[in-house]
């Protein structure tokens, strides 16, 4: 009950005209960065960060989280209408969302996407409300072996369920690991893979990789496909929205399962991208008619969207209570937190309840505001993409390069982004998944640090990963995620049936 009282206090902090206006501004800006390919939520948030230094922390976090919600919604819009994921986490939405739009069911697809996204976000926030007190104590049980087990679980789920062939996922992940190890190694204090090249000393930022891989890579592909977006005119009328809303409860199994996956992946540092893929794969695997997926199945939109948003909001919890960001955007926000003079950690809940509960209350309101705003503004934002490609493309390139430069104020990063654009193009041509590469870049070095710290703890014995109930459970789930789908595939193969996951 304490939590409910704290939440009410949070609402009293947040419910001011100033904060509601900030929320709306954040959501609108977020939709804008979400709609523009290459300028995802992490970039949007890092571009806005300097503006917040003079604000009080509660206002600042409201602005940034609202921008995040907006970007998640905007990313789904372009996925469905144009088959361009504005966000890495909305890639899975394109699989069924775009076919639906092509069949003239754009309104239905968009409404399903937004409403299920809203549902997922609410599920995530409710969880945070109920568990935050408990998480602060739970956090202290995490040491290096537990962190490694969580990272291991995420990697395992990618190989097992991620979509493309496990072999290609492992290759992409390996490239990501190599990139993540560039720069100063904090465990040995030595410099690695810089080839005495000063610009590489600070490592390669995953933000720059994402700008190149998704933004520039996507542009190169679009150019090849004939210099035009395959846009579909979208009109969202209130009646259609209501009709779709009435259909939503039919998919309650998908909604609940996807929320659970999303929340889990948000709390463990898997992140929204991993969550949406995993949720799509699970929906397809458990469907009575998996063949319908990829051809305009509403459940193929609902599953990734719900999980994406549930993970996005649940990711705030490990950021605040443990100091580990559950998503790329959460990582950027955590940087912000420190600049505003707040130290993420268990004491944040005790020392700054106004901030923590203000943030949680703003997540309830922010998502409601976002759903309303997004349904109202879809036609406007969609019309951006009616502008001829020859005008939009150079603008996107410019935005990508400005974004890349802003990350570390280094010219060198522009070239890195360009190089990643080519990598992204080649990956897509050869049908290698990009998500495992990004994942390995984001948490690869943390996983390595956690593993090596564990080895220092145990003086080189692997038994430390089975030394208590918590770490054993996490490792067991990880191994199961790694092995089970492979067994499933083998048995399907033996029985001579086409593996279900191949089409993903």
């Amino acid at each position, binding site marked *: 009950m304490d939590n409910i009282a704290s939440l009410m206090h949070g609402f009293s902090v947040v419910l001011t005209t100033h904060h509601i206006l900030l929320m709306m501004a954040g959501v609108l800006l977020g939709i804008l960065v979400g709609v523009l390919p290459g300028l995802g939520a992490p970039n949007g948030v890092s571009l806005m960060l300097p503006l917040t230094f003079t604000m009080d922390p509660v206002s600042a976090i409201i602005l940034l989280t609202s921008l995040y919600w907006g970007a998640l919604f905007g990313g789904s819009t372009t996925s469905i209408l144009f088959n361009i994921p504005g966000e890495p986490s909305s890639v899975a939405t394109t699989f069924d969302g775009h076919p639906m739009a092509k069949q003239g069911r754009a309104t239905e697809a968009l409404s399903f996407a937004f409403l299920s996204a809203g549902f997922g976000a609410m599920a995530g926030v409710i969880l945070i409300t109920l568990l935050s007190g408990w998480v602060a104590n739970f956090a202290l049980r995490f040491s290096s072996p537990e962190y490694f087990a969580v990272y291991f679980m995420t990697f395992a789920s990618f190989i097992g369920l991620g979509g493309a062939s496990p072999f290609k996922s492992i290759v992409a992940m390996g490239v990501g690991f190599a990139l993540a190890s560039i720069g*100063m190694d904090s465990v040995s204090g030595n410099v690695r893979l810089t080839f*005495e090249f*000063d610009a590489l*000393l600070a490592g390669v930022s995953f933000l720059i990789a994402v700008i190149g891989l998704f933004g520039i890579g996507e542009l190169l592909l679009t150019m090849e496909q004939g210099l035009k977006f395959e846009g579909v005119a979208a009109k969202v009328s209130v009646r259609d929205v209501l009709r779709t809303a009435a259909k939503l409860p039919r998919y309650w199994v998908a909604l609940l399962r996807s929320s659970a996956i999303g929340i889990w992946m948000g709390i463990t540092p898997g992140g929204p991208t991993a969550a949406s893929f995993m949720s799509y794969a699970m929906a397809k695997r458990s469907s009575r008619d998996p063949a319908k997926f990829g051809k305009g199945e509403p459940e193929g939109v609902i599953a990734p969207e719900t999980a994406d948003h549930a993970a996005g909001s649940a990711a705030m919890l490990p950021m605040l209570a443990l100091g580990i960001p559950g998503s790329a955007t959460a990582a950027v926000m955590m940087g912000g937190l420190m*600049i505003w003079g707040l130290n993420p*950690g268990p*004491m944040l809940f005790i020392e700054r309840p106004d901030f923590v509960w203000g943030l949680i209350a703003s997540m309830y309101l922010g998502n409601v505001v976002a759903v309303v705003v997004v349904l109202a503004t879809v036609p406007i934002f969609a019309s951006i993409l009616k502008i001829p490609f020859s005008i939009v493309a150079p603008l996107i390139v410019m935005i990508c390069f400005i974004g890349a430069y802003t990350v570390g104020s280094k010219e060198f990063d522009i070239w890195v982004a360009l190089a990643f654009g080519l990598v992204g193009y080649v990956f897509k041509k050869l049908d290698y998944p990009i998500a495992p590469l990004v994942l390995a870049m984001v948490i690869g070095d943390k996983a390595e640090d956690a593993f090596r*710290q564990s080895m220092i703890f145990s003086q080189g014995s692997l038994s430390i990963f089975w030394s208590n109930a918590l770490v054993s459970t996490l490792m067991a789930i990880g191994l199961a995620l790694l092995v089970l789908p492979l067994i499933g595939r083998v048995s399907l193969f033996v029985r001579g049936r086409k593996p279900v996951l191949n089409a993903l």
Partner: protein
Amino acid sequence: MKTFSITAAITGAIAFGGAGAAQAWQPTKPVEFVVTSGAGGGTDNFARMIQSIISKHKLIDQSIVVVNKGGGSGAEGYIHGKGGKGDAHRVIFGTNNAYLLPYVAKLGYKFSDLTPVAALALDEFLLWVKGDSPYADAKSFVEAAKAKPMGFKMGGSQSKDTDQTLTSMIQDVTGAKMIYVPFQGGSAAAVQLAGGHIDSNVNNPNENIGQWKAGQVKPLCVFSPVRLAKGEPVFDGKGWGDIPTCKEAGLPIETFQMPRTVWLPAEVPADAVTFYEGVLEKVSQTPEWKEFVTRTAQTGRFMKGKELTDFVAKDDAANKKVFEAEGWIAK
């Protein structure tokens, strides 16, 4: 009247002196503050505090841009500083890592690529254990650690950096053998100690204060020649000033402190160095700075010129001795 004319003369002299210095060297474009740590780190707070004091008291006419270049334990920032050779519009903020980093890793800069300007404070190190641990003082902790070689885990921030150097010194004077576990930063080492995953850490006051307030950790002694300034009680009626020095507590390490330092690139005009010395000395006398030093439980000490170079030489030699004994010197 006589008093008045003397006062007038003195005022005139000061004004003239000020004007003279101003003519000698003044920034002619925005000044870049290079921070050799990520946003939110100790060095970041140090630089941003000075930036806000300078702009509040209008000590520099030009605007100030702060950039974080914390890659490679801060080497990124110093290399950026080296790139500004001869340009006194690039001011670099760091610690003793400016002269210690090039020993332990092969990096793209040497200490001679920097011009020393000033140090403004000394950050303190303390020996911390878990709040409910049975050790009441440093002596009993050291005895327990000695009785169980490689049984105690000391956590710290980074590798071959101040925390590990101090750990190595403790082992050297006491004969205890501990396992050193490097974490990403002081805050991680603080949480790991609070959770009981490590037995001790040697965090700076500011890194552990959150956990001390909650009673999750407790300080045993401070590696300083004298006790810290008396302040507000933090936990259980005890404040910073109640912590014994390590020497009184039976851990014979006289002093281990980390200077908060300011540098310019090599080959800058001598009067530019004088200009920044003057600005920073004024900063160190403001109430805002004194409040900052007290709040973060650092020791305020302004050093420039010979005092600074002597300090650096002594600190450099003491650390180098440990690096050599541990075999950390990069070839």
